[in-house]
């Protein structure tokens, strides 16, 4: 069955599922929900992501670099997790 869907629609579902999976009341879930509507918070997240995250109660390891990519009307960013070799020892056995 070839059902066509729009990129914006599926992206939005992905976002909502992510927020749902994290928990709407978790610090990061709340931060992301606020960032959708708050221009100042968005700027802060883009310019100084770690500061904005820390202020919202999302503490990350110091050595981890954080970059925030902002979707616009014209650009959609997709982030791929690291490639997993399913046959290596690294992956969990199924």
């Amino acid at each position, binding site marked *: 069955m070839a059902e066509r869907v729009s990129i914006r629609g599926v992206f939005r579902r992905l976002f909502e599922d992510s927020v*749902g999976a994290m928990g709407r009341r978790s610090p990061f879930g709340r931060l992301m929900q606020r960032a959708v*509507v708050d221009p100042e918070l968005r700027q802060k997240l883009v310019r100084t992501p770690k500061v904005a995250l820390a202020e919202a109660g999302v503490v990350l390891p110091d050595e981890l670099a*954080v970059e925030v990519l*902002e979707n616009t009307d014209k650009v959609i960013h997709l982030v*791929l997790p*690291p490639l997993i070799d*399913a046959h290596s020892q690294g992956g969990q*056995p*199924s």
Partner: protein
Amino acid sequence: MKANPLQRVIERACTDAAFRAQLISRPHAVLADAGIDVPAEIEVRVHESSEDRLLIVLPAQGEYALGDAKCRLPEGPVADVPEGMTLAWQQTMNLPKRTLVIKGKVDATTAPALRREIDRAFVDIDLDFSGITVIGSAGLGVLVAAQQSLRGRGCSMCLRLVPEPIRNLLEVSGLLNLFEVHDVDEYRQLFPKGAGLLFGGVAPSKPITDV
């Protein structure tokens, strides 16, 4: 509910190196193959996160807020509904969804108004069935068609508080498994699901074989 095609693309790109390379170099084509239409004027940039670099995507501003014009649905009773049925839009708890409360008869006369209302939705919606007394084949047809067009907009539809006789009707007519049906308790547990792959690049816990 059917898996989000974009989620499946991302999951496959976690384990299938050739597919991943294709997605990075020709995102539009790969997404189109997966059934996802990307307007030509939209640029898709694919990034790879690594263990020491976390990438977070911010959705476009206002795109998912309920106050956004695209998502705006009226609040309260719906006008211009034929006699015998009433419709009302409500907030769904504190979730970014809306509930359409349907009461009375959903038959050939009233079903088109139901279709019209569902077609206004650009958010996930719940249909509150608790007040429906009768639903005919025209009503069932509208539900199937409206769900299809909602999915085309990337939204889902869920039936809530379905009275026993109507549930039985859906079951015997073979339509029950076409819909997501949630009772209140199930509904409370609804949201903690779906893999949060997008934010922070958390890899799935086991290899994905489903293609």
